[in-house]
């Protein structure tokens, strides 16, 4: 501990340089953490969703509805303990610049299947009793400045006309997959306004045991195989995962860029650190004359490099970890539950250690191996 002063004094030698070095390491790791979090958040999204929930879609494609009549037939199947359905609405609010998801659901069964949608009991009650009411995720409150009880009008893009809903409740999702920027309203009202078309965009099927998921999914699909609308059933996780894969190789691009970023900044930083270390050849020779051993000098130079790298890493990684939840970042709705994963922090810390080695090893070895007489001759 008695050497702390010496290390601190050396770091304070060129305060600006030390600060810039720490700042550039911090920036590199902040960026690294951010970019990697895009990848991990996408991957994590595939892990969201209840294991006991299946999703049944039209096999022809996402945009094709299923007959509402399928509901009772699915419900009657063995292993099915609950059922709800929903329909994508795709309404536009205002000029449409701020997109958010909105869909019609069979409210009572839907809220029963999704305990992750948390809201005060009285609001829930009000919604269930208000046929033209809606509930919204809490992000929409801050995004549009809406208030509980006010009316909101959406313009239908798929289903024409102006649709006005009264906000009966504000929910907070406990699972990021649910989305905190969604408007949910009654399927019955929706069905009525589109002329009782009797369609459901997708069914949510609750099953008794996650282990039965494959059999039940297959049974549902078999049931409708030869009907006008064949189905495709999978677990909610698989459903989420398809959204992640829709990004294509964006996540690969992100990790590549992240690596390039880290490498680029670390190169420059390591170089700067090595150059400053070189200026001190003379002083290291003096310390050796005083009796500092090679090993001690090696350690001191390493500790110095480590202090810069690790401080920078702590700021960068810590900053990213704290910043994103604080500003409720969700990538414009594309990256719900965006956060810096523990694995990212660990890799970031390893990167910092790598930087410490890369920038400290050469000067530290040089310090340790420095032939005193030659170095002193340069000084004298």
């Amino acid at each position, binding site marked *: 501990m008695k050497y702390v002063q010496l290390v601190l004094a050396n770091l304070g030698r060129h305060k600006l340089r030390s600060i810039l070095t720490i700042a550039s390491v911090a920036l590199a790791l902040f960026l690294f953490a951010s970019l990697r979090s895009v990848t991990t958040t996408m991957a994590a999204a595939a892990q969201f969703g209840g294991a006991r929930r299946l999703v049944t879609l039209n096999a022809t494609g996402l945009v094709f509805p299923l007959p509402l009549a399928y509901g009772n037939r699915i419900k009657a199947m063995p292993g099915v303990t609950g059922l709800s359905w929903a329909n994508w609405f795709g309404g536009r609010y205002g000029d449409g610049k701020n997109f958010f998801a909105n869909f019609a659901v069979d409210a009572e069964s839907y809220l029963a299947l999704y305990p992750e949608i948390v809201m005060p009991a009285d609001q829930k009650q009000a919604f269930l009793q208000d046929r033209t009411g809606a509930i919204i995720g809490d992000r929409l409150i801050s995004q549009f400045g809406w208030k509980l009880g006010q009316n909101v009008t959406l313009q239908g893009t798929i289903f024409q006309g102006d649709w006005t809903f009264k906000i009966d409740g504000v929910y907070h999702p406990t699972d990021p997959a649910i989305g905190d920027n969604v408007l949910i309203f009654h399927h019955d009202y929706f069905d009525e306004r589109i002329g009782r078309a009797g369609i459901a965009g997708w069914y949510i099927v609750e099953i008794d045991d996650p282990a039965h998921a494959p059999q039940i999914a297959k049974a549902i699909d078999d049931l409708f195989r030869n009907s006008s609308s064949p189905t495709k059933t999978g677990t909610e996780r698989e459903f989420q995962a398809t959204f992640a894969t829709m990004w294509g190789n964006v996540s690969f691009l992100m990790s590549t860029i992240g690596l390039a970023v880290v490498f680029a900044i670390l190169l420059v930083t390591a170089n700067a650190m090595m150059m400053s270390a070189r200026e001190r050849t003379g*002083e290291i020779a003096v310390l050796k004359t*005083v009796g500092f051993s090679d090993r001690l000098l090696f350690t001191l130079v390493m500790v110095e490099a480590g202090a810069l790298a690790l401080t920078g890493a702590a700021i960068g990684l810590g900053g990213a970890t704290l910043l994103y939840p604080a500003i409720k970042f969700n990538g414009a709705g594309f990256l719900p539950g965006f956060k810096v994963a523990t694995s990212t922090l660990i890799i970031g810390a390893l990167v910092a250690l790598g930087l410490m080695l890369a920038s400290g090893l050469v000067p530290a070895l040089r310090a340790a191996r420095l032939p005193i007489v030659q170095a002193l001759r340069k000084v004298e």
Partner: protein
Amino acid sequence: MALVEIRDVDKSFQRDTQRIDVFTGLTLDIDAGSFTALMGPSGSGKSTLLNLIAGLDKPTRGTVRVGGAEVSAMSPGQLAAWRSSNIGFVFQSFNLLPVLTAYQNVELPLLLTRLSGRERNERVKIALDVVGLADRADHYPRQLSGGQEQRTAIARAIVADPTVMLLDEPTGQLDAKSSQEVLTLLQRLNNEFNKTIIIVTHDAHAAERAKTILHLEKGDLIEKPRVAAAAR
């Protein structure tokens, strides 16, 4: 028995393709408690001799012993430990660490000991007191005059209570007045604290203060016994 025993030492450097022999068969004794000045023209090997004694450099052949320990046979690790407790080295250009205060500079050699913080504090204070810089403890080197810097360096050299003090042109960068101060200080250390001092200089006035003057010329030693009176 002499404190410093140099026996039949050869030292040569390789410069490009040329071999330069600095010493051949040099033998020299320096007694404990002595104050020796090494003089000679540039390239005569004064500094090399000092470096050999301090264990900063190794002889090509022969042995160097200081206080009975064979310096020339030690490993770099042993040398570092040995140097920290046996050698006090002072440079022509002071070589204080610019980022440390006078106090911290003086404390450096003590960091290598097992002394507690309080003990270190006591000894640094004494050392600064001896060189007359107690009131400059918190100054950084750039805030000190050349003479003060060199006295700080001397305090650093004596703080670990070394067996021998080696000074390489300690007055080379100082004005006349500061030089006198430093030399007087060295004499005091020699007389009052019985420190063994070896000083390399080509300033005849500085050499006058020593008890013994050794002349090196092309690696050969010409001893000139000093008149004792000048030591006062």
